């Protein structure tokens, strides 16, 4: 009786207190507001364009329609572009992992000045824009006078220049290099801080260096591997600069198509619909990667 009489009186006070406390939310408020105003709202606006009729830059009132989305989903070109976006991103992401892991592992084995130099070397590409780096790949991979072809022809390895530029290969090579730091950095943090005694324990139990690497070091870095995979997949899948520059005029991925529809063709409705497909599929794939990662990493949730 007394308890029942007291508790309703207490509840509002506790609620107010909890709201004032905010569970740590208040410090994040500026960032959240910034993201809402400059990311979420523009994105929603853009996506909304896909579901209304736009006539000469004006939204025709009360004209919600699923027709553009339906049309895009029935367009085999869209599916072909999505597939290309997907496999280019997958191959490039796997390549970044294969190239990044040895670098991050080497970093974790070095000390002092060499370690600092390696970190600088890993980060410094981020100081130039991805556009510049894509142009650099144009110079390297380009026709007869590109560095690769020129060297190979001079050495007599090939007679005719290799056709790398304007193919999937160029796009994958460029993307892999440009996105490498995003894979190296999470791996580097985890590998450098790892508990070396686990490796000593593995040696002590009779495992060789290679066995220890694959049975102890790699499994322990699974969270970082999947963080890197998710990050690099997302930026590779949605990248339009690299496919556009290194893929050439006749090459397109879904992201390139979004850009062209919006900026060149000025068909905002179709651009918005394609962007919605790109965004939602990207989200699904990233979610899948994270889910697989946490399945493999089940042990980390095991607590007494």
């Amino acid at each position, binding site marked *: 009786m007394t308890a029942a009489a007291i508790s309703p009186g207490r509840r509002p006070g506790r609620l107010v207190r909890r709201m004032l406390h905010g569970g740590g939310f208040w410090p994040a408020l500026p960032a959240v507001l910034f993201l809402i105003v400059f990311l979420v709202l523009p994105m929603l606006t853009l996506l909304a364009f896909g579901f209304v009729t736009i006539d000469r830059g004006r939204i025709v009132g009360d004209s919600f329609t699923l027709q553009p989305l339906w049309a895009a989903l029935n367009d085999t070109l869209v599916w072909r572009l999505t597939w290309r976006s997907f496999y280019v991103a997958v191959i490039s992401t796997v390549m970044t992992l294969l190239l990044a892991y040895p670098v991050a592992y080497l970093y974790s084995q070095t000390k002092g000045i060499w370690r600092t130099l390696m970190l600088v070397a890993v980060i410094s590409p981020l100081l130039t824009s991805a556009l510049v780096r894509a142009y650099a790949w144009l110079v390297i991979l380009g026709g007869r006078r590109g560095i690769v072809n020129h060297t190979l022809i001079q050495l007599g390895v090939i007679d005719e220049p290799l056709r790398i530029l304007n193919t999937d290969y160029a796009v994958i090579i460029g993307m892999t290099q440009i996105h490498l730091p995003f894979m190296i950095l999470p791996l580097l943090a985890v590998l450098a801080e790892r508990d070396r*005694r686990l490796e000593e*324990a593995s*040696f*002590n*139990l009779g*495992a060789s260096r290679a066995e220890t690497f694959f049975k102890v070091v790699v499994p322990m870095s*699974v969270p970082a591997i999947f963080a890197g995979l998710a990050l690099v997949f997302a930026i590779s899948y949605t990248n339009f600069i690299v496919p556009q520059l290194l893929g050439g005029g006749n090459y397109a991925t879904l992201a390139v198509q979004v850009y062209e529809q919006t900026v060149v063709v000025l068909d905002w409705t179709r651009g918005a619909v394609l962007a919605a497909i790109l965004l939602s599929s990207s989200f699904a794939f990233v979610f899948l990667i994270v889910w697989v990662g946490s399945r493999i990493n089940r*042990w*980390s949730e*095991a607590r007494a």
Partner: protein
Amino acid sequence: MPHIVMESIIKSYGDVRVLDGCSLSVEKGQVMTLLGPSGCGKTTLLRTLAGFVEPDAGRVLVGGIDITALPPNRRSVGYVFQNYALFPHLTVAENVAYGLKVRRRPGPEIKDRVARALDIVSLGPLGDRYPAQLSGGQQQRVAIARVLVLEPDVLLLDEPFNALDAKLRLSMQTELRKLIERLGITSIFVTHDQSEAMMLSDQVAVMRAGTFEQVAPPLAIYDRPANPFVATFIGRANILPVGLRAGAVVDFPAVVAERPDGPADLIVRPENLTLAAGRIDPGTGQSGPPGTVLFAIAQGPTIEYEVDAGFPEPLRVTVNRRSGEVPLAAGSPVSIGVIDPAACRVIERGTP
């Protein structure tokens, strides 16, 4: 032929000489403890034996075979890490099976031996748990089972009880001692806890600054410490600057010393001293040096006194307490005597 032999091991990190010519031999089936303060090189020596540290000079032999150049994964030396270093991504059974799997043993044999190893440490039902789901004591047992399942020649343990709370520590120490005795495996412990060393080992090697100060059975070390460092590290001791005359200590004539007359240091344990109110030593009937009680604490079974007896440091005396006995008040005049003169050590003045 000793089972483990280490010959003048030297190891430096930069300018710091961590191991300065350590030589040690351990008989088969014996338990040796490396005891010393932190930074004395005891863990480095153990890691040298396991192959994690490559010595700058010296040799390591196990069973008469030189293993100095052998990589850690080719040595039959089990190592239990201070925080156990269990693989967090593997279950208890997978942790224990790890060494057998890298040795490519057939599946049924692995299963059988893992089950037996887990039974030895009474963890049979917990095979499917992850290390994070175990208590500290259980984790330690997994670490031991993981090593024992490979039937190594030598068992090395780096402060294995450090991470356990006091109560669990005591029972695990007893359990481990029994287990080692049952398996008859040559073992080396590292610890900085002297009571642990006393309890677990057949031999104790007291280390300081990369060298051995004394290697002897635990009671021998306690009763006949080689120097003040050993005396104060194992148990407590009074180090008294005394004079020698005619082969006996001036202040305690009952204590004889086969040394030339002159200054010397006397090592005497607090419990080997006694005191009585007044000026007559009740223990031997001889009069000891007179003193004044500075401080007294009754601790149930014993009373701890600090007595000013004219030495630079106050003398520490531990006497047994009878029921109802109240310690003497500070300032009381007392007479101090030695209970067993043979248990005192007279050494050269100024030995560190």
